[in-house]
Every structure is written in structure tokens, then in C-alpha cells.
């Protein structure tokens, strides 16, 4: 089990440490998941996401050649991403299944990629194998990653780091904190405005403590991170996305830009493009949908969904939404049952309880576009 650079800070803050993706991670602090969740929605929450993989793609030739090579791994427009901007991407396999979802940023002369902790070893091997020739794939091993999320994140970060407030959603920038170079993006995984901040290991604890010293900021564990992203309708890899799900089934077509679609300038040309293009043209067999259980019982991953006697899908992730104040879930259902308003039954502890297909997010997002 690996330890985070901030392990001692987490335990000093009363964090309850649990295993997650090979790391000991704080699942909650003494305030508890509910208060941590609501604090992030009303003020600012600090998350340690240093377990995630930060990787630089350094072009061996031009950035354009590197972008085109990277496009061979994803159904996403890399070439069209402007300098100083970040975009959501996903690696697909030969069957069109999702190997991982990620963020990538154009930093002028290279790309910065941030991948999921549980996939990072495989992702790095995948990129090394597929991008050889076009890029050096350089894991960033001397930096931690923090996320500051919530409506007061902007005011807090600008107080410490000049230039934060001028950024808009999905901008990336190098900002200075007392001589320390921070890699900042205005993004996150909560549905709130906020930032993700890569910090050199030597300054990580000092910077985290400086943020926590601000009156608006509370440390937030994995428990609230999960309920926040669920309310925002965001996928958790390994639950809502995996090699059996395609980007189209997952409802991530917004991440598949025109340039890579049928008739686009750089149509196809990524693993599994046949399936993805076929599903884009004709619709997938099943779709990820939002689900609102009737009543108060949370419905969790694996709960089966029925239309009459027919099994039509299953919940991929679900729980209680503290801001929604009700159980919420997302899952995959056969396409004919994916329409908003469709009433299905979920099998919970031997009983069938009604759930309604709904749109997402469950809680409105507040990105600063």
C-alpha cells in the first residue's frame, strides 16, 4: 500500500484512512461525508488527489505531430485544443471500450495528461507503446495534486496566488506561489467551480496548510468526492466506465468533437472507431442514464433494473445525494428504456421499488465558462 506525501497531514486532521487504488487515502475527516459535501457546495473544499497520474507528453518532433499521434489513442480532437486549454479525453480499446478517462492540456510545447490512479500504470505503458516516435512519455513523480472546489475557491486561491481569478473553466496556467511554480487548471470533479493544482513535493504540505488556514477551506475525503461527482453526473472509472462500455453508451458524445466524427477532417483512426462511429450513426444498444429512486432507500452499484419482468439494466453507481437530499444513481439501461421519465423497477433486498429515468446532473453545475 502506497502512502501519499500528505499522509501525516491527513492523519493529523483526523482523516480516516482506507485503501483506494493502491493508496492509503482519507475517506472522511471528523466532520463526516455529509458536512464535507455540503461545505464544498457552499464554501471551499480541499481534496488531495495526489494518487492520480500526472504525465508529460514531450514531442520528439513538433507539437502537431505529437497531437496527431495522441489522437490515434482517443476519439477526441487533440489538434484543435488551443494553448493554455484543457480537454476531457478517453482511451479506447480495439472494441471501442473505455480503457480510462483523463484530462489533457496543451501547454505550448507539450501536453500534460492527468489519468486515474487505478489505471496509471497501464495508461503509461499504453502511451509509451503507442506514442513512441512522436513523444517522450514522462511520468511526473515529484509533484502532488490538490483540488480546491466550491463557490469560494476562486476568492481563496486568488488571495494566495495571483492570476487564479482571471482563469476560466478548463484554462491551464503556470502560477507562482512565493517562488513555487504551480500548475493550475480551472476544473474539478464536483460540479462546482474550482481548481486542480499540481504542486512540487517539497512545497506540497506548506501549500495545503496555507489553503487550510483560510477560513473558507475544509479538508474533504473520498466519500464526499464520490457523492459530489455523482450529483454532478460525472463518471467514475471502474464503475460507470470500463472496457465493456463505449463512449457513446456512456453518453459522452459531447467529448467526441466533430473533427473525429464521420465527415470530420480527421474522422476515425482510433482504437474501436468502427463501433464508436456505428453507435454515433445508429444509436447504441444501451445508454448511461440518471435514475431517481422513489422514496428514501439508496440504490447502489449492481442493483438490477426491470421493465415489467424484463431485466433492462443495472445501476453503475448510486447513493444518497446530500444536496439533492434524496437517493440518486446512474446506470446503464437498454436504449428503448433510456428516455427521461421512463419508469422502471429496481430490485432491492428482494423487493421491487420504482425508479425514474432522469437527466443529469442531479445538482446544477456552476463552472465559470
Amino acid at each position, binding site marked *: 500500500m502506497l502512502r501519499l506525501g500528505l499522509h501525516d497531514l491527513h492523519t493529523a486532521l483526523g482523516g480516516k484512512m482506507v485503501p483506494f487504488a493502491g493508496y492509503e487515502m482519507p475517506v472522511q475527516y471528523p466532520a*463526516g*461525508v*455529509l*458536512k464535507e459535501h455540503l461545505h464544498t457546495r457552499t464554501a471551499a473544499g480541499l481534496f488531495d488527489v495526489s494518487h492520480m497520474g500526472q504525465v508529460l507528453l514531450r514531442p520528439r518532433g513538433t507539437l502537431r505531430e505529437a497531437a496527431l499521434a495522441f489522437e490515434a489513442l482517443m476519439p477526441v480532437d487533440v489538434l484543435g485544443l488551443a494553448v493554455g486549454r484543457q480537454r476531457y479525453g478517453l482511451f479506447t480499446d480495439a472494441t471501442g471500450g473505455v480503457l480510462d478517462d483523463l484530462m489533457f492540456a496543451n501547454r505550448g510545447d507539450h501536453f500534460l495528461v492527468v489519468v486515474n490512479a487505478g489505471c496509471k500504470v497501464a495508461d503509461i505503458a499504453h502511451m509509451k507503446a503507442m506514442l513512441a516516435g512522436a513523444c517522450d512519455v514522462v511520468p511526473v513523480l515529484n509533484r502532488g495534486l490538490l483540488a480546491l472546489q466550491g463557490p469560494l475557491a476562486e476568492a481563496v486561491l486568488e488571495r494566495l496566488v495571483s492570476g487564479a481569478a482571471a482563469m476560466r473553466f478548463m484554462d491551464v496556467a503556470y502560477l507562482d506561489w512565493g517562488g513555487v511554480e504551480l500548475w493550475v487548471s480551472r476544473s474539478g470533479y464536483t460540479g462546482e467551480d474550482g481548481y486542480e493544482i499540481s504542486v512540487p513535493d517539497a512545497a506540497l504540505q506548506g501549500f495545503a496548510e496555507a489553503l487550510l488556514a483560510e477560513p473558507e477551506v475544509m479538508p474533504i475525503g473520498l466519500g464526499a468526492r464520490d457523492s459530489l461527482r455523482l450529483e454532478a453526473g460525472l463518471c467514475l472509472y471502474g464503475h460507470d466506465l470500463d472496457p465493456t462500455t463505449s463512449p457513446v453508451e456512456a453518453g459522452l458524445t459531447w467529448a467526441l468533437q466533430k473533427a473525429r466524427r464521420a465527415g470530420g477532417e480527421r474522422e476515425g483512426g482510433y482504437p474501436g472507431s468502427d463501433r464508436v462511429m456505428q453507435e454515433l450513426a445508429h444509436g447504441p444498444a444501451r445508454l448511461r442514464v440518471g435514475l431517481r429512486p422513489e422514496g*428514501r432507500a439508496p440504490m447502489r452499484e449492481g442493483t438490477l433494473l426491470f421493465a415489467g419482468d424484463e431485466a433492462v439494466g443495472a445501476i453503475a453507481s448510486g447513493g444518497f445525494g*446530500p444536496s439533492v437530499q434524496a437517493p440518486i444513481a446512474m446506470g446503464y439501461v437498454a436504449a428503448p428504456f433510456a428516455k427521461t421519465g421512463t419508469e422502471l423497477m429496481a430490485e432491492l433486498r428482494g423487493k421491487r421499488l420504482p425508479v425514474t429515468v432522469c437527466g443529469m446532473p442531479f445538482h446544477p453545475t456552476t463552472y465559470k465558462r
Partner: protein
Amino acid sequence: MKYTKDHEWLRVDGDLVTVGITEHAATQLGDVVFVELPEIETVVAEGDEVVVIESVKAASDILAPTAGEIVEVNEALVDNPALINEDPTGMAWIFKMKLDDLSVLDDFMDEDEYLELIG
């Protein structure tokens, strides 16, 4: 008050036993968001799953501490599951049962033994 190794407390009043979960258990569960209570007059055996408590983190079953009949349930928990965190040993009693055999109560832990168990 008596305690089970499953972190339930039992308050005995004649042949009627009130059951709840301990403060330790409530803290471990985290914020409770859902409670499913048994039907009154349900006859239960020791170890039957009689109550479901869901926190923001996970679902947990509360087991019948011994054989008997459920005679009363705390409906207030259905509308306000957070009572379990606020007052686990008072307002948030969960159910009352009539025991088949009162002598089994001797087998449960007293407070000192329970405190030793949870360290």
C-alpha cells in the same frame, strides 16, 4: 444496559427489550440517510436481519440480538434517519421486542465489557 458484539445496546424493562446501536457503531457508520424498519409482530430468530441502516457510505444490517417478537418500531427514524447519529442511545432507539427467553440476557456484555471490546 446490555451490549452485543454487533454493537447494539439493549435496555431491559420486564420482558420488553429496547434495541438500538451504540455511539461507536453510529460513528463508524457515518451520516445515516436511510432506515428500514421491520413490521410489528414479526417473529424473529437470533441473527435475523431485521433492520437496514444506510449511511452515505454503505448499507448495514442490524441483526436480531435474540429470538422474540418485534412489538414496536421507532417510526421517527424513517423521516429523520440522522437521529441515529445525533442520539444513538436515546431518541434513536430502533425497535422493541418481547423475548422468548429472558435468561439469554445474561450472555450479553455489560458496559465495562463492551468498552473493553471497542478499545
